[in-house]
C-alpha cells in the first residue's frame, strides 16, 4: 500500500515540519497575549460624533501614554478611526487616566492582572497534559484486546506521537504569525490546541479501529501486519478526508464571516485539523508498522 510503503518519505516530511516549527519558535519566540502575561487591551473608536480630523495619530497616543507614566504600548489601527491598544496592566487609577486620555468611545477593555496570568499558565499546562494522559489511557483501554502483533499500549504511544506533532506545528505557525501579523497565544489558542488534540485522535482512532477489526477477520489471518494496516488505511481514508473537509468548511465560514474574537481561533483550528488528518493517516498507522517490524527484527536475532 502506497502510504505504508513510502512511509519514510512522510516521516521525513513531518520531521521537516516539526524542525521548522521549532526553528520558528526559537527564532521569533511566542507572542503571548495578555491572558498569560497580564496587561490591558483597549479598543477605542473615534467614529461617533467626533470629526475624523480629530482622531489622534498612533504616535500621539503612544507619547501621551508614556508621558502619563503608563509605559510602552503596542498600538494597532483598526478601520479609519479606531485603535486597539495594548499596555502593561493598568490599575484602577491608571485605567481611569487612560480612558480619560484617549477620549474616544471605549468599545472594549480587557485587563488581566499578573495573578490571573499566572493562573492561566498553570491551567494551560495542566489541561494539555491531562488531555494527553487521558487519551493514552483511553486508547490503551479500548484496544486492550488487540495485543498481537503490537501491544495495545503501543497504539496509545503512537497516537501520542501523532498528537505531539499536531500541537507542535500550529505552535510553530503561530510563532511565525506572531512575528508577521501580531497573532497572539491566548486562552482561546490553548482551547484550539485541545480541540485539535480531540479531533486528531478522532481520526487516529477510526483508523486503529479498522485495523483492529481487520486483524480479527479470519480471511486476513495470512496477511502481513503491514498489509492489513495498509488496507485499513485505504478503507478509511475517504472518511478521514471528508470529515476533515466538512469541519474545515465550517471553520472557513467562521474565519471569513465570524466575529473578530474567534478569527485567530479558527485559523489555529484549520491549521491543526489539517495537520491532524495528515498525522493520523500518514504517521500514526505507518508508525505501527515500523514498530511491528522492529519487534520482528529483534525476535529473529
Amino acid at each position, binding site marked *: 500500500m502506497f502510504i505504508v510503503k513510502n512511509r519514510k518519505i512522510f516521516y521525513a516530511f513531518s520531521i521537516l515540519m516539526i524542525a521548522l516549527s521549532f526553528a520558528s519558535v526559537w527564532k521569533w519566540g511566542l507572542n503571548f497575549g495578555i491572558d498569560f502575561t497580564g496587561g490591558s487591551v483597549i479598543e477605542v473608536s473615534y467614529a461617533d460624533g467626533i470629526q475624523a480630523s480629530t482622531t489622534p495619530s498612533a504616535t500621539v497616543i503612544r507619547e501621551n501614554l508614556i508621558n502619563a507614566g503608563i509605559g510602552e504600548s503596542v498600538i494597532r489601527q483598526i478601520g479609519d478611526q479606531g485603535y486597539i491598544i495594548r499596555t502593561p496592566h493598568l490599575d484602577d487609577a491608571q485605567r481611569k487616566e487612560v480612558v480619560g486620555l484617549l477620549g474616544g*468611545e471605549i468599545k472594549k477593555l480587557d*485587563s488581566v492582572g499578573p495573578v490571573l496570568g499566572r493562573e492561566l499558565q498553570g491551567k494551560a499546562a495542566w489541561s494539555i497534559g491531562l488531555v494527553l494522559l487521558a487519551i493514552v489511557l483511553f486508547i490503551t483501554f479500548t484496544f486492550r484486546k488487540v495485543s498481537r502483533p503490537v501491544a495495545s499500549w503501543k497504539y496509545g504511544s503512537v497516537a501520542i506521537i501523532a498528537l505531539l506533532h499536531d500541537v507542535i506545528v500550529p505552535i510553530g505557525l503561530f510563532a511565525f504569525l506572531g512575528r508577521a501579523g501580531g497573532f497572539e497565544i491566548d486562552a482561546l489558542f490553548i482551547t484550539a490546541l485541545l480541540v485539535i488534540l480531540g479531533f486528531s485522535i478522532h481520526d487516529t482512532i477510526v483508523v486503529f479501529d479498522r485495523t483492529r477489526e481487520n486483524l480479527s477477520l479470519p480471511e486476513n489471518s495470512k496477511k502481513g501486519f503491514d498489509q492489513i494496516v495498509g488496507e485499513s488505511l485505504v478503507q478509511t481514508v475517504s472518511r478521514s478526508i471528508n470529515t476533515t473537509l466538512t469541519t474545515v468548511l465550517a471553520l472557513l465560514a467562521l474565519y471569513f464571516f465570524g466575529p473578530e474574537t474567534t478569527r485567530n481561533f479558527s485559523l489555529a483550528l484549520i491549521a491543526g485539523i489539517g495537520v491532524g488528518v495528515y498525522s493520523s493517516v500518514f504517521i500514526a498507522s505507518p508508525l505501527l508498522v515500523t514498530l511491528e517490524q522492529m519487534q520482528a527484527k529483534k525476535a529473529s536475532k
Partner: protein
Amino acid sequence: MNKIRFYAVILLVIGALLGAFVHYSEMPGRGFISKFPYKLGLDLSGGSHLVYQADTSKIASENIDGSMETLKNVIESRINAFGVAEPIVQTEKGTSGGQEIHKLIVELPGVTDLEKAVELIGKTPVLEFKTEKGVRSIPAATGTNATATEAVDVMEYEATELTGRYLDRAQLEFDPNTYQPMIALTFNEEGKALFADLTTKNVGKTIAIYLDGQPISAPVVQEPIRDGKAVINGRFTPAEARDLARDLRYGALPVPIELVGTQSIGASLGTDALNASVEAGIYGFIIIALFLLVWYRLPGIIAIISLTLYTVITLALFKLFGIVLTSAGLAGFIISIGMAVDGNILIFERMKEELQKGHSIEDGIKEGFARAWLSIRDSNTSSIITGLILFFTATSPLIKGFALVFILGVFVSMFTSITVTRTLLLALGMKKYEGATKFLFGHGLKK
C-alpha cells in the same frame, strides 16, 4: 416497513415542532414559550466582567469558605440594590504561581461602562469614629488675597477602633424637630460595647464621624450611650442620605478584595459579534449541505435532514437549559455542525463498501451502521473526555461556554447521525442496488 416509516414521521414531526419552538420563542408575546430566550454571554450582549482577588491571608483557613460566601452575599445585595438585571456573582478557587487564590467573579450584563461597574461594587464607604487629639493652630494665611489675619485653632482627631464594620443597621430617618434627613445607625454587639466605652470616656467632648476620610459631624457627647444607637446629622439631601444609608448597610466586606482583572464589552461590539456568528453559522451550514448533496446524493439529502434536526435540537437545548452563549460557544456550535456530519460520513462510507460486496440496500444500511458504531463510539468518547477536561480547567466564561457546547454537540450528533439517519434511510424502503437507486446511493463525482 410501516413501523419504520411511522418512526420516521414521528422524528420529522418532533423536528418540526422543535423548529417551531426555536423560531417562535424568539418572538415577543408568544406566551409561555417566550420564557425561553437565548442567554447571551457578556461578550455578545455587552457588559462588564470583573474578577476580584480576596485577601484571605488574615483569615483562618477553616473560615475562608464561610467568609467568601458572606463576601458573595454582600456584593450580591450591593448589586441588587442598584437594580442591575441578572447579575452573576460567584466565588472560585484557583492556583496561581503555586499559591492558592480565592476569586470573586462578578458579571454585570448591560453595564458597559467599566468605571461605573467598578464603582458600583467597589464603593465601600468607610465610616470612622474619631476622638479628640488636641488643638492645632493653623498659622495665618499670608499674601495679598489673605483675608484671615489671625491664627485659627483646629481640632485634630485620632482614629478609634470603632468603624462601619461594626454596623448592624443603617437607615434613613428624619429629625422630628427640624425635618432634616439623618442616618440612624445601630451597632452590633461588639460595636455596642466599643461605642459605650468611647462615649463613657468622652463625656463633654466631641466625637467626630468621618465618612471616606472627610468629617461630616462632630457632636458633643452628653452622656454615655449604651444601647448601641447613634445618629449622623449632616447637611444631606434626602436622596444623599438614602444612598449613604444603603451604602453603609452593605458596606462592610468580611474580606478585603482587590480588582485583578476586568473585561468590558460595548453593546455594539457584542451585537456585531453575534450577527457575525449567526452569519458564519448559516454559511457554514449551506456549504456543508452542498457538499453532502453533491458527494453522497440521496443519503446526502438524508444527512442534511439529520443535520437540520441536529441544529434544531441543539438550539432548543440551548434555550431549555439556559446555556449561556458566548462567541466561543457559538464557534463551538458551528464547528460541531461540521463534526456532526462525521457519524454520517463514517456510516455512508461503510454502507458503500457493504453495497459493493453485493448486499441489498436494506442489509447494506444495517451492516454499515452496525460496523460503523464502534468507531463512532470510540471517537466520540475521546471527544467527550477532551470536552470535560476543557470544561473543568477553563479559566474564563468564554472557554467554559465553548466546552459546554462542544460536549452537548457530541451527544446530540450521536443521536442524529445514528438514530435519525438510520430511520430515515430505512424508511425510504429501497431494496435493490441497481438502476436509478444505484445512482442515488452512489457517491463522489462519477456516475
